[in-house]
Each structure stands twice: as C-alpha cells, then as structure tokens.
C-alpha cells in the first residue's frame, strides 16, 4: 500500500507480518478459541493436523511430486510454506472421514431416535492454498444445497478462520491455472499470506482477519516487499507445466462413454480409491450402524466411501458398476463433466493430488486429453 499514510494504516489491505512475531499470531488464534490446523510432517508427508508452535510447521522442507511420486526434500532455506500440497485436504475437518449422525436408544416406549449434535469445533485453517479455497467452494455447493444442508459441514465452515497461503512454487502435478483456481488466492479467505524471507505479506480478506492484524499492530508493506511477493507468486505460475482443456473436456467427455480408452486405463487402475481419498472435493460416503453389545444404543455413522469400491453401486441384482472400467469412467466423468451439470462447477480444482497419490501414476489430465481427442468413429450411446 504505497499510498497508505499513518492515518490510513488501519484500513490498509496489505500488511507485513514479521516472522519474529509469527508465534504471537498463532498464540492470538489459540487465545481466541481457535484450534489451529496446519501443515506438519507425519510419516514422511506434509499433512494437516493440530499445531500450536511455529516449530511444528515443516520449516525448511518441500515436496517433490510426479505421477505416482511424492517425496519430502530439504530446502535451502527455512520456509514454513515452501511445499505444495500433500495427501490431506481441509475436507477432513469440514467433512470428517467418520461422523456420528444419529443415535437410536431403546426406551420403554420403543426406539428413541435423535440427531447427534455436531461438536462445536472452531478451527483456524493455516496454509490453505488457492486450489483448496476453490475446493471448499465446490464442497459448499454439495453440502449446502437449497434442498438439504449438512449441519456439521455448515457449522464448521461458518465458524472456521481461513488463513490462506499463496503458492510461490508449483509441482509438476499442478494444473490450477487450467482450472481457474490458482495459484493466487483471490477470495474466500480471512487472511492470505505470501511468504518472503523474514516474514509474510498479508492480504486482509475480511473484518475478522483485520481484527488479528490490527491487534498485532501490523504495518503496511513496503513497495519493495509487495513487488517481491508478486514475483514469488509469478514464480509459481511460471512453474506450472501441466494443462487440461477444461471447457473442451466438460463438453466432450460426456459423449465418450464407450471409448476404448476406458478399457486401457482399467488395465492399469487398481481401483484402490486413493484418488478419491486425497481429492479435496470428492464427497461420497456410506453409513453403517455401530452398536453396543446389547443393542440398546445404536449410532448411525457416516464414513468416506469411494465410487471405486466394488460395493458402492450395489443394488438388489448386484453392483451396477462391476468393472474397473466403469468405475474409473464414473469417477472421471463425474469429476470433469457431470459435476458441472449437478453443481454448476467442475469437481476438479487442478491440485494434482490424484496424480501424485495414484500408486500406478495414472494422470487424469492425460486420460481426459486422450478421451476427448477427435474420435475416429462416432460412438453408440451418444446423447
């Protein structure tokens, strides 16, 4: 904010957070009742987990990614956010892998059935990338529809504080520029950080975010730092090499349901469901009953499921999609085209997780490209 004068400081939209007081910022979040969730190293990967200290962050580490490849490497510096994305996404806090939905208790009048009230968790998500902000907006459309709303999702989403981080580097698996979802954070955050040596350029996205920058008495950034931040953000753009022709795929893939490529990809695909577990937008779930030993109290429990699981499409006659071919087709066509019909947005945000975490390195951008090339023969069953 070059134009900011002292009297306008409190209205500045971009301020400087020195690394030296980053811990004070985290302490302020905790003091305000937020549980901080951010990047930590666990089992050789950067995951999202509770943290309190700056030292909990993956200082000086980055990730090396490719199809079927994810490795941590040391950086030359002590950057806190110098990695791209790992196997976790924020959906595991907004749409937890396992949730209790309803409780049935045996009483004198018979069953008493009541909703399980969602825990009143208040999260501060630290380190949310642009593609992950986009993924949250995608899941908003899934879980908060005009007809039905997932209460747990809505509650956690509405009371979460979102501290985004602009990417300053990209992985070979990234293609957010193709999906219009990054790498720069434009909206959907309370604060957005760009990490530079010695601190962070902080964009203020909400009044809630401003409360923290005001209480820390942060001052407007210098022109030099603002330029440095822009250059760091541009570095991420320049590093992105992977592409997906979003609009072409959206309009074409739904007409390629009988393409021979589905058979070819099915020869490689293990139907392991990894891609759906790491995907920040995949929302499929199943419900099961968990009961105490005397059947007096039964909890209806929801857990993540995947369209790659054999039983997922089970009806009385058996699974509808009993081939890997049809299950991969369901996932890819849903993600890239039918999602648009259902929710008015693509289900893919270009984060590349499904490429890195596929054990056999299947690349959805490559599959989509091949499937949407001009077909040699018209297909039967085209709409």
């Amino acid at each position: 904010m070059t134009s900011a004068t002292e009297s306008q400081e409190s209205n500045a939209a971009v301020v400087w957070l020195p690394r030296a007081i980053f811990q004070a910022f985290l302490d302020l979040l905790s003091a305000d009742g937020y549980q901080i969730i951010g990047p930590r190293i666990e089992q050789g990967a950067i995951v999202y987990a509770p943290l309190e200290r700056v030292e909990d962050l993956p200082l000086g580490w980055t990730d090396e990614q490719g199809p079927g490849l994810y490795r941590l490497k040391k950086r030359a510096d002590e950057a806190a956010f110098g990695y791209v994305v790992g196997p976790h996404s924020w959906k595991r806090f907004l749409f937890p892998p396992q949730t209790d939905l309803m409780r049935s208790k045996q009483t004198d009048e018979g069953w008493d059935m009541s909703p399980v009230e969602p825990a009143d968790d208040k999260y501060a998500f630290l380190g949310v990338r642009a593609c992950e902000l986009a993924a949250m907006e995608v899941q908003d459309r899934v879980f908060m529809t005009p007809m039905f709303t997932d209460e747990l999702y809505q509650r956690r989403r509405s009371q979460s504080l979102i501290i985004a981080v602009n990417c300053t580097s990209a992985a070979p698996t990234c293609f957010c520029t193709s999906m219009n979802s990054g790498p720069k954070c434009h909206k959907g955050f309370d604060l957005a950080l760009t990490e530079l040596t010695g601190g962070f350029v902080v964009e203020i996205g909400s009044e809630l975010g401003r409360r923290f920058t005001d209480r820390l008495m942060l001052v407007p950034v210098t022109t030099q730092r603002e330029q440095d931040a822009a250059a760091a953000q541009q570095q991420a753009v320049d590093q992105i090499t992977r592409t997906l022709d979003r609009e072409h795929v959206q309009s074409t893939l739904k007409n390629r349901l009988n393409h021979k490529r589905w058979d070819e990809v099915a020869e490689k695909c293990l139907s392991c469901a990894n891609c759906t577990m790491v995907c920040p937008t995949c929302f499929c779930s199943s419900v099961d009953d968990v009961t105490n030993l005397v059947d007096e109290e039964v909890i209806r429990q929801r857990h993540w499921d995947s369209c790659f699981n054999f039983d997922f499409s089970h009806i009385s006659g058996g699974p509808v999609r009993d081939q890997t071919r049809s299950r991969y087709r369901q996932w890819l066509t849903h993600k890239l085209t039918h999602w648009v019909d259902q929710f008015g947005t693509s289900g893919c945000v270009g984060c590349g997780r499904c490429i890195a975490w596929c054990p056999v390195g299947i690349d959805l951008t490559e599959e989509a490209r091949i499937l949407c090339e001009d077909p040699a023969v018209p297909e039967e069953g085209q709409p």
Partner: protein
Amino acid sequence: MNAESRPATLACHPWVAHVAIVTEVRSEIDSVATFRMRFRDPEIARQYRFLPGQFNMLYLPSCGESAISHSGPPENSGEDFWHTIRFVGRVTDSIAKLKVGDQLGVRGPFGSAWPLDACRGRDVIIMSGGLGLAPLRPMIYALIAQRESYGRVVLLHGARTPDTILYPEEISQWRDHGIEVELTVDRASNEWDGNVGVVPLLLDRLSNVRPSETEVVTCGPEIMMHYSAVSALGRGIPETSIWMSMERNMQCAAGLCGHCQWGPWFVCKDGPVFRYDTIRSLLKVRDL
C-alpha cells in the same frame, strides 16, 4: 418436477429418522409383503404427505436402511402409509420379521413423483413388471380417485408366473373402476389361459392408442422399462410423454452421499421418476 411442488421431507436434518409403528402386515406373493405403518409422534403423522412415486428410507437400528417406494393411497397421511417390500437382502429380510406393533425408523418422503399433472385430461398407459407395480399403485389410486379427470387408463402388467402377479384381487377391482387391464406372464401354468410373453408386446398389440394424447408410465426391471419405451416410441408416443422409475443404490436420499449417481443425475433427488428424453442416452450405456 421441480422440488418446490413436492411435499416437505420430514425434519431439515436429512439423516434423522422418525419412529413408525407397524399397524398391519399383509402377505402378498412369495417373499413379498405389504406393511402398513404410522408415525408414533401424532404431530409428525399429521404433517406427513407424499406424492405417488416418492419413497421412504426404512431403518432398522443395528441392521441398516433401505429405500422403499410408497405403495398406498396418496391421500393418506403419516397416520397410515404402506410399503410393499420384497425380502432380498439384509435389511429387507429383517423387515420381513416385523410384526404388528413393532417399530422402525422412517425418513422421507424423498424423490420425484409420477406426472399426474401431465396426465390430466389425457390417456394413461401404465406398464409394470413384477414388483414394479408397487410404486405405481399410489398413482393408480390417484387416477381412480379422480377417474373423470383422465382419459382412457390402461394397465399393462407382467409377472414371471401367474402366482407372482402382485395384488390380484385389487387388479380385479381396478377393472370395475374403469381401468383396462392386460396381464401377461413369462411362464404359464396349467390354470393360466391368458397372455404369455413380455410386457412391451402388450403395448405393441394395444388397439386404439392415441399417441399424441397419451402418457406412458413404467416401472420394473431396467431392461423391461427400456423395451417398454421402445414399444411406446414405436406406437408414435413422443419421448416427452414416457416416464420411468429408476433403481440405484441409495443411502442418504438427499444427493449428499453419491451412491445413486447416474450420469448427471442423482437418482434419489432428481429421480426416481424421470422423463424418458432426459435419460434416453444413459439407458444405452452399460454399467453406467
């Protein structure tokens, strides 16, 4: 149909069931029974309404949940609603053991309905196979209740064998209420002197069809519905006048769990009743 014209699903929380009490169990054909039930809470019973074609999720704690269509009169409230159930799996086998006075959980109603408005003033051809007659029965009750509001009404129903024809006594009564009925079976027995063959053949042979004045509704095995539509198209009935009720795995019934997806549709909330022109291309794709 649009969501606004549907009866409200009970409770804003789509996952929470309400307790219902079984009031009557009527054995139908082999492994099939109709359960009449009412909600235990009188206020919920009073509020509850459904449209023909909609379904409930029936829940037995520690066993699970199953999507079952309404098969009773749509003018009834939650004081008295009916479900005709075939015992084919873990949940329905346990429902089979329920007796009068037993309790279960019910969520609903969910899904789209048969196009009664589109049928008003027009001929209606109902094509059902096997247990597919059950989700159509509320529609038949609605047609009979306002018989003068509709043109010719024909039921074309098929079963595997004569002793698996659902609701045989009622079918006779429907004839008395101005519904033409043609039955067919896949395999005849000694006592059967009626038609033998598939349901679409009944439409192929039906006389005096007025294609532009007719709506066709069909429910049964997917292959049977597919060929019923082919037959209807062959008789000159337009795609936009053919309706079918699809079956897919349903768990949440609210479009949140993903199981019932079929191309762009969630069968639980966009269906189960679809107009043929919106699903024609999907029906042709195997394992979709």
